[in-house]
């Protein structure tokens, strides 16, 4: 009878508090995991917007002709021509050279920059050429205030 009473006295205060503290700590770990998921989801959304901006810029560039001149020799200088003060004045690809927007109007946290160079097939399209060639390399970079930049490079020739 004495042994039964001894076993039935229940949990001590210390045991209950330790178990509750452990329970609370496990919830904190759970919340931390949720918070990490939230950050990943937010970054995924920002990456979606970043890739749409990149795609949009590339489409605007591809909609232009290869060069100001209709046939070789192509323009010796890359960049905007006189009178081309706005993007809707741009009529060829290299007008976008050094084009930059610090804050995209619909998404101010994002910025865009473009660099255009002549490249050649013999150098694997990687090395900028000082002379005019039949290929232009267009690098579009979309930056964000907290995320890393997203960059893409297109090679465009007069026939494509």
């Amino acid at each position, binding site marked *: 009878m004495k042994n039964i009473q001894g076993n039935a006295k229940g949990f001590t205060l210390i045991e209950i508090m330790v178990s509750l503290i452990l329970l*609370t700590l496990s919830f904190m770990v759970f919340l931390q995991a949720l918070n990490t998921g939230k950050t990943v989801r937010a970054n995924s959304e920002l990456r979606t917007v970043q890739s749409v901006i990149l795609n*949009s810029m590339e489409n605007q560039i591809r909609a232009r002709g290869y060069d100001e001149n209709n046939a070789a020799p192509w323009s010796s200088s890359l960049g905007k021509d006189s009178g081309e003060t706005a993007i809707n004045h741009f009529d060829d690809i290299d007008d976008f050279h050094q084009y930059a927007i610090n804050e995209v109007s619909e998404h101010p946290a994002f910025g865009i920059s473009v660099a255009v160079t002549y490249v050649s097939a013999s150098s694997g399209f990687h090395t900028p050429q000082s002379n005019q060639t039949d290929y232009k390399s267009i690098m579009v970079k979309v930056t964000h205030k907290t995320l890393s930049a997203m960059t893409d490079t297109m090679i465009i020739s007069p026939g494509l």
Partner: protein
Amino acid sequence: MIIVIVAVGIIGSMAATMLFQGADIFVKETNRQGFVSEARSAFWRLMRETQGQSSSADFILSDQNSLYVKNGKGDLKDFQTSSPDQFNFRLGTGSYNSLSNSLGYSQSNGFTFYNNNFNVVSPSSGGLNVAQAKTVHLSKLDLTFINDMDTLSLTSFVYPHNFRFGSKMSYHD
């Protein structure tokens, strides 16, 4: 005994609050993830199909709320936005399928068309006519998706791949 009850009450309520907050965050994030995925896939479909437009003349009947495309195989597809929140897709002349019911119709600029001078081509009543459609060189897609307090605006210019190769000739038929 009282101390035990108070201690259990305090720590237990803290644990319950945390559990409630965690569950709440989980549900909201799951919904948000679903919303973003839906918006992204709907917009991607729109961009991809527009990229496949075979000829500018096939933009005929398109306007701010409608976009008609025909791919290289001659499959007609159209996208429609409608109030209050519908973004639909149709293949051929069948029935419309919903791509998203989270569209913010009044917040979206819809579809805009530009000629080769990059000036806006304003559709006549009933959408672009043949002459207007043939001048389309570049299109702009601008949709805003809204779900409760969440807003996702996606805007992209689209220059169809085929436009760079010129119009289809009779010998292509």
